[in-house]
């Protein structure tokens, strides 16, 4: 069971158990308007969620306490509204109404006086403009040693060390180099294993070699086969393959 009064709160205005907050509020030792009631609700809901079961008793108690707190806070925010006319005795209500009417009537007459004044003063013309600028006060600087300034500037004037970009350079061998190489291999052998052929090359060279493969494939010079992803790529001369199929068919 969630015990509402022991709910730990961590608000801007207050940190501690809910019960203590209520006590402090009732004793006027804490300003209710500074208390974030939504924060209390959140804390309760989080606590409830952590329990993973709906505790109706706790919810009911919490609702009663929080709504009382909200009402107190609302009343505090509108002090004037506390004296609602409806709650007053007819005599008192009449007095309150008369007071309000008198206040408004005075202001209405003041407004009428202002209007008369405006009309009487209507023929007064004067210049209105932004305030002119006051002269700027020259800041007085302390005496400076020019040598110090020069030293500081010298420090700034040193060119920064050159940043090396060597590690970023990628050297791409020409694709044609691999075209020639693969054609030469294929003149000697009818098929070869791509990984074996380029295994000792760098990654970039391997990539260019692969481009060369695609180029040869496009030209119809080779056939490429791979049994499964990441399996060895096998290259064969297309004329060999054609021969094979021809042989098969004729057999």
């Amino acid at each position, binding site marked *: 069971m969630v015990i509402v009064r022991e709910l730990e709160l961590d608000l801007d205005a207050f940190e501690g158990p809910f019960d203590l907050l209520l006590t402090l509020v009732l004793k006027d030792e804490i300003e209710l308007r500074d208390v974030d009631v939504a924060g209390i609700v959140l804390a309760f809901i989080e606590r409830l969620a952590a329990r993973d079961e709906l505790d109706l008793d706790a919810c009911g108690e919490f609702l009663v306490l929080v709504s009382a707190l909200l009402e107190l806070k609302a009343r505090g925010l509108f002090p004037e509204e506390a004296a609602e006319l409806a709650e007053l005795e007819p005599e008192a209500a009449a007095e309150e109404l008369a007071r309000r009417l008198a206040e408004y009537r005075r202001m209405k007459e003041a*407004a009428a006086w202002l209007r008369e004044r405006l009309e009487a003063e209507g023929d007064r013309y004067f210049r209105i403009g932004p305030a002119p600028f006051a002269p700027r006060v020259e800041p007085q600087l302390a005496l400076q040693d020019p040598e110090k300034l020069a030293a500081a500037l010298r420090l700034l004037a040193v060119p920064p060390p050159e940043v090396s970009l060597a590690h970023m350079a990628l050297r791409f061998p020409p694709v044609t180099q691999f075209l020639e190489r693969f054609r030469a291999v294929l003149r000697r052998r009818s098929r070869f294993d791509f990984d074996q052929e380029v295994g000792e090359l760098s990654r970039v060279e391997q990539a260019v070699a692969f481009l060369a493969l695609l180029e040869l494939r496009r030209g119809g010079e080779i056939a490429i086969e791979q049994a499964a992803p990441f399996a060895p790529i096998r290259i064969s001369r297309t004329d060999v393959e054609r021969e094979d199929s021809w042989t098969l068919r004729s057999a």
Partner: protein
Amino acid sequence: MDAPLRLIAANPLDQLAKTVEALLVVASAPLTVAELAEAAADDPERVEAALGLVGERYREGRSGIVLERVAGGWAFRASREAAEACARMVEKPAQRGLSQAALETLAIVAYLGPCTRPDVARIRGVSADSAVASLAERGLITEAGRDDAAGGAIRYRTTPLFERVFGLESLSQLPRLDDLGGGVDEIRDRLHAVAEKRTA
């Protein structure tokens, strides 16, 4: 600095009057005696005396320019004789077309200021938002901090421009609140009569 020394230094008053005159021409808002004294580098008492000389020269009916004491300071304005000509040339945006709601709001802010929009609304019984906004835009009222109470609504007070537009030396020239609101007692009596009937 030694004030008596400067008096003996015989800067004649009419010389100071010329300086004061020049400062007033340059200024775009009323200048207080203190401001004039600081700019003229002279004593406030002598500036007052010089203002007397300048005021004599720029009296209504004597010149097209009139020196007036307004909004807590001193300022030049056009003579009333020239008003028609002025009206053909310049607009008066601050006071043109002030509504009844705006004037009532202005009165409330002038008497009770600094006060908030809820204060104004409570007295007038309707929302004061647009009236306050319009007055602030005209420069007749301005923000003056926030209410201490909960919510911290913005407070407003009237500006020196308000006093100038209405030709007031200061807010104390407004009629006393006690002198306003005639007939209030009659209303009160009638309300009480109704209340007695309800209790009976």
